[in-house]
């Protein structure tokens, strides 16, 4: 293994063509063509060109390199093992931990290479803005200047990097005129030596990474740069995965919102009625007060009672508006510790008018004490509401003697809570039973058939399962499970769901 100094700018294959006067033309012309190249060959071509130039033109540098090669070799070996560890760690990272991991590993890389600042820049959408997403700083070294934007301070250089090329310099004086914007920036704020490289994911550049040393200049061997490029590629893979998961999450929450809005739309008459009740009560109470006042307030205690009634009614009306508005909003999902019993009762209250309008009795069976669950209130309400409305629909089709929907929560079992919605309606026809949770499968005359699909997606997103079973006496029971909140003091392991609930084997 020969170790070569890179004590000049490394601009991939164009380095050898960079003669004064000729440089600018060639540089941009070639850069435009270069985006078609595959990423690995581009980087390697750059290093190879450099190698040729170094061997033919800078003999002095080679002698210097030999003196440093022992130290550089040790550094390389150490760094290679850091990259191997990084690779393992990144495959384990989840969408939630990946950003923390990247920041942490930027630090590990800087420590291994004795660098002072490292950053990752992400481009979230192709052609979109490039933003600084992760940064690691050695203690007491300067962060980026306030309002730092790579595309503003060095737009040409950023564009060059985002086309898949690298800019590596060992000292500021080596930055050629074509990178004047970058040079101006580093002269003022920047490191004395830096490697800035594109971040590849597959065949696309999805960002960039920079590694800088502020205390002094430093040499970058081609092998080291290859390892560094590999590390950046590992980051790129992890970030691409994160972005893909975020896109799926966004699509899922948009679908959930659309379905929720359409469901609430169906309930508009009921909700208006629900709001009418407290308004009616307010009017009654105020009417009473007005009458008392017109008579010179002969019974102040009665007036006070009516007034306090009216205030409570107003609060209730506000509460209904708040609940309904929350269901229409498309906020980011927010998982908090929830009392699922209260959530179920809340929804039952919201739908009480719809039920009484359809002459359906709602029974609620909730154990006295339940552990809390971690989840998004609105999304879980949506699930319960979907199942309830389905149950109503099924009952209306069957018109049973005593139309009843029972919402029950089973006591905690092996760390799981099971919530079931049972109806004595028409049941589910065999022809759709197996495809119930697919899109556009519906037994309703109106409706898109998205309710159960969205419900399942929400439940699974919360770590639970959902399934349906026919009742022996007719009708259907839908059951879904959610993991109970694990208290910090309890250490017992939670068994897989399928063992806990025999009925879950259908999925």
């Amino acid at each position, binding site marked *: 293994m020969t170790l070569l100094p890179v004590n000049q700018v490394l601009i991939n294959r164009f380095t050898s063509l960079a003669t004064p006067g000729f440089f600018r033309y060639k540089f941009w012309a070639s850069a435009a063509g270069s985006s078609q190249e595959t990423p690995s060959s581009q980087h390697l071509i750059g290093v190879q060109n450099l190698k040729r130039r170094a061997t033919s033109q800078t003999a002095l540098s080679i002698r210097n390199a030999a003196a440093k090669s022992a130290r550089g070799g040790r550094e390389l070996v150490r760094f290679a093992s850091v990259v191997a560890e990084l690779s393992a760690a990144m495959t384990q990272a989840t969408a939630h931990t990946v950003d923390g991991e990247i920041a942490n590993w930027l630090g590990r890389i800087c420590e291994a290479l004795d660098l002072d600042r490292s950053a990752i820049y992400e481009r979230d959408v192709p052609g979109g803005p490039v933003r600084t997403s992760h940064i690691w700083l050695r203690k007491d070294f300067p962060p980026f200047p306030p309002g730092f934007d790579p595309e503003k301070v060095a737009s040409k250089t950023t564009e060059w990097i985002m086309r898949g090329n690298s800019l590596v310099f060992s000292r500021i004086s080596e930055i050629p005129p074509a990178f004047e914007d970058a040079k101006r920036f580093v002269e003022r704020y920047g490191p004395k030596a830096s490697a800035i490289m594109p971040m590849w994911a597959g065949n696309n550049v999805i960002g960039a990474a920079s590694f800088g040393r502020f205390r002094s200049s430093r040499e970058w061997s081609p092998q080291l740069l290859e390892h560094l490029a590999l590390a950046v590629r590992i980051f790129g893979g992890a970030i691409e995965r994160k972005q893909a998961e975020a896109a799926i999450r966004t699509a899922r929450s948009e679908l959930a919102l659309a379905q929720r809005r359409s469901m609430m739309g169906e309930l508009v*008459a009921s909700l208006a*009625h629900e709001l*009418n*009740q*407290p*308004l*009616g*009560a*307010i*009017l*009654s*109470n105020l*009417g*009473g*007060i*007005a*009458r*008392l006042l017109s008579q010179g307030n002969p*019974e102040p205690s*009665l007036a006070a*009672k*009516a007034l306090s*009634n*009216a205030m*409570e*009614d107003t609060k*209730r009306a506000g509460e209904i508006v708040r609940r309904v508005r929350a269901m229409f909003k498309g906020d980011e999902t927010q998982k908090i510790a929830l009392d699922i019993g209260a959530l179920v009762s809340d929804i039952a209250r919201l739908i009480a*008018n719809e*039920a*009484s*309008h359809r*002459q359906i*009795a709602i029974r609620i069976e909730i154990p006295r004490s339940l552990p809390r669950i971690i989840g998004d209130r609105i999304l879980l309400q949506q699930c319960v509401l979907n199942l309830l409305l389905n149950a109503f629909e099924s009952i209306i089709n069957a018109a049973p003697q005593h139309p009843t929907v029972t919402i029950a929560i089973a006591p905690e079992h092996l760390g799981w809570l099971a919530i079931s919605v049972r109806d004595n309606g028409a049941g589910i026809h065999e022809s759709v039973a197996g495809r119930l949770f697919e899109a556009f499968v519906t037994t309703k005359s109106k409706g898109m058939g998205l309710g159960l699909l969205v419900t399942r997606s929400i439940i699974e997103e919360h770590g639970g399962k959902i399934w349906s079973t026919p009742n022996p006496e007719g009708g259907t029971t839908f059951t879904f499970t959610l993991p109970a909140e694990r208290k910090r003091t309890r250490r017992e392991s939670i068994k897989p769901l399928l063992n806990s609930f025999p009925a879950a084997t259908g999925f």
Partner: protein
Amino acid sequence: MIVLDDDLFICRALKTQLEILGFDVVVFHTAERLLASKITSPNICVLADVYLPGMSGVELCRRLAAEGSSLPIILMSGRDDDETARSMRDAKPIARLFKPFEQIELLRAVKKAIAKKSRHAQ
């Protein structure tokens, strides 16, 4: 006066309002309970909601009419869709009220009920 509504807030408000108007008020939440209580005769009228769990206000109207009861019923509802309005009309109550209603409407309905009751007594 009997107030029959499954909504606790409505019951409380109507009770207070009717008490201010000088009536004694008894509250029920289901028609079944009201029928089981057998306290119908001395009361002036029933102020009943249409949508109730179990027997509806409309059914209660029919039931009392079939039994030849002299107890007038004022039907009230928070819904004013055609279907609800028709079923209320068909039940032939002494008066119909759509929530939210003003005191003057309530008084007018109660007056009608009193007039019917006194006619019946003669």
